[in-house]
């Protein structure tokens, strides 16, 4: 069975779905170029990203399944799970057969696999909307570095653009070297490579200190429970948290 290799973009993934569907093909894997590990048993099929094909798949999902299904596979894609591609294909095959009601088949693996990934991505997105920390830089930009487990940075733009509508900010996904930018008008995504040093605004450290103090004093010492703390806020996120340094 062949292995589909796409360029890593969402359009590329949808093109792969299109090709598999219309060639009546059953690929064993659908992986992005970066995650592909070659061996001599694999028949490789390189997918040419084609926006027209991708749009057709997109429209078909909205028409024949649901908007909910569309956002489901988007989130599954963002999970970057090694099997996400093949899970999405199986889910869509099932969805095109059953239609809108597909998401009621909660116990079916084809639906369950997607739901599990969606839950993970949704949770991380919600957590990040609370635990990213902006630092005010000398040039009056609010800068927040993060390293999410899943590719959730792109989901944060809308939330922060609405909330911090009068401040320029950058949310920097250090692991994936891209970021969400907001310029007081609209938000957009772009690649980031930082060359010069990051210089804080003169007040920045003052407020960081205040925050750390607040964090310490608001703890009730007779109820200490570090396990509960790290259940809610896993240690992998502590690196960029001002209060945990």
């Amino acid at each position, binding site marked *: 069975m062949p292995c589909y290799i796409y360029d890593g973009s969402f359009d590329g993934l949808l093109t792969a779905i299109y090709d598999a569907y219309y060639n009546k093909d059953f690929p064993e894997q659908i992986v992005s170029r970066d995650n592909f590990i070659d061996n001599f048993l694999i028949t490789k099929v390189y997918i040419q990203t084609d926006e027209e094909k991708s749009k057709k798949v997109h429209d078909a999902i909205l028409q024949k399944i649901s908007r909910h299904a569309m956002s489901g596979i988007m989130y599954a894609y963002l999970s970057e799970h090694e099997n996400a591609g093949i899970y999405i294909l199986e889910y869509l095959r099932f969805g095109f057969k059953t239609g809108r009601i597909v998401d*009621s088949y*909660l116990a079916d693996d084809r639906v369950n696999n997607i739901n599990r990934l969606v839950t993970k991505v949704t949770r991380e997105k919600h957590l990040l909307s609370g635990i990213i920390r902006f630092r005010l830089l000398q040039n009056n930009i*609010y800068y927040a570095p993060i390293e999410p487990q899943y590719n959730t940075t792109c989901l944060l733009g809308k939330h922060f653009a609405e909330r911090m509508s009068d401040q320029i900010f950058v949310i920097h996904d250090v692991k994936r070297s891209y970021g969400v930018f907001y310029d007081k008008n609209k938000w957009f995504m772009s690649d980031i490579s930082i060359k010069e040093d990051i210089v804080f605004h003169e007040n920045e450290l003052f*407020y960081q200190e205040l925050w750390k103090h*607040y964090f310490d004093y608001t703890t009730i010492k*007779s*109820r200490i429970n570090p396990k509960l*703390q790290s*259940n809610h806020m896993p240690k992998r996120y502590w690196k960029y*948290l001002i209060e945990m340094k």
Partner: protein
Amino acid sequence: MDLNEKIKILSDSAKYDVSCSSSGSSRKNKKGGIGNAAPSGICHSWTPDGRCISLLKILLTNYCIYDCKYCVNRVSNDIPRAAFTPDELVNLTINFYRRNYIEGLFLSSAVCVSPDHTMEMLLKSVKRLREEFNFNGYIHVKAIPGASNVLIEETGKYVDRMSVNIELPSGESLKLLAPQKTKESIIKPMGLIKSGIIQNREEKLKFKSAPQFVPGGQSTQLIVGATKDDDLKILKLSESLYNSYKLKRVYYSAYVPVSNHPNLPAIIKPPLLREHRLYQADWLLRFYGFNSGELLNEENPNFDELLDPKSGWAIRNLDTFPVEVNKADYYTLLRVPGIGVKSAQRIVQGRRVSMLDFDDLKKLGIVLKRAKYFITCKGRYFPQKSIPTNPVSIKNRLLLEDNIRDHENVEQLSLFSLFPDIMAAELHMSRITGVL
């Protein structure tokens, strides 16, 4: 006094207020403004005690004229005192908010000079945040008992949530520990806020642009373990607050010793497990269709600390079980121990397309640890040797399973301290084989 010192004193005094939720309001940002409210609420950090930080929880001042025995800020307590100027407070809030440290402000205060004076200071601060700084994030403010109606109503127009802490669950306890407060002075502002919310809802129906009044609802807090009041009394009180005062939340706070007055019990550890049981029961009242009389009665006025309230109820009412997962209606499913709101909804959705089996339930993410004693799938019990059907053995099984998860706490269970050797041997086995 510098700002660091003030934060230290005024957050230290505010932290025993447990409410921290930032949910229930969907206030939108305005043009050129800062902040909005997320209806789900957002937690921004978790302190080492495992509690979340959502709002900047702080007192305007801890200078107090009252002498409530259970409170750190009582006038007779020798602690450092401080007060924020409205400017300092507003600046702090905005700067924390812009850095995404917090979801908003939870402003409270000790009663300084008089209730009216204090309420006026609170009002001034939130008004400045909303009007001068165009701040649209979440604000929770304490209504000060004894403050005039006008001030409380005016404050309600600027905030998302208001609360009045009852603290002590009965009039007698109040007399004993907070002689300057009366039941009436606490209940009055609650009634006022309630009617304000109802009136605002009616106005909203007529005029879409009517200003909001406490859109996140009101809450209160009860201290657990500072007085002799039993769980039944506390739960009955919560129930009537939910029913007649339409409260959003009642919080329970295990009493943390902050004073050694002779009227207070001498306790070393706060009664955290009791607090936990009350929260579980509170959820049963609000989301599961239970009433307090089903969970507790005059003969059993306190919760079993070893067993959660829903399991306790189910074991006392075994005649209504087992429940057939594929047939039972939503509210019956909700009463099964181990099945919560989400699980019940998933079952109802999943069985529309196919009959559910135990394996399916697992895939739906339903935990069978408790539920398996109370349900059948397609008419059959969980496929395991000898599912007990009498109350005593079900209870023992539930306790045993709890204990295996948490085997460090073996001593806490009296059942096992009776047979220490047997238990130790069995636990040792289960650690090796991974099964019981």
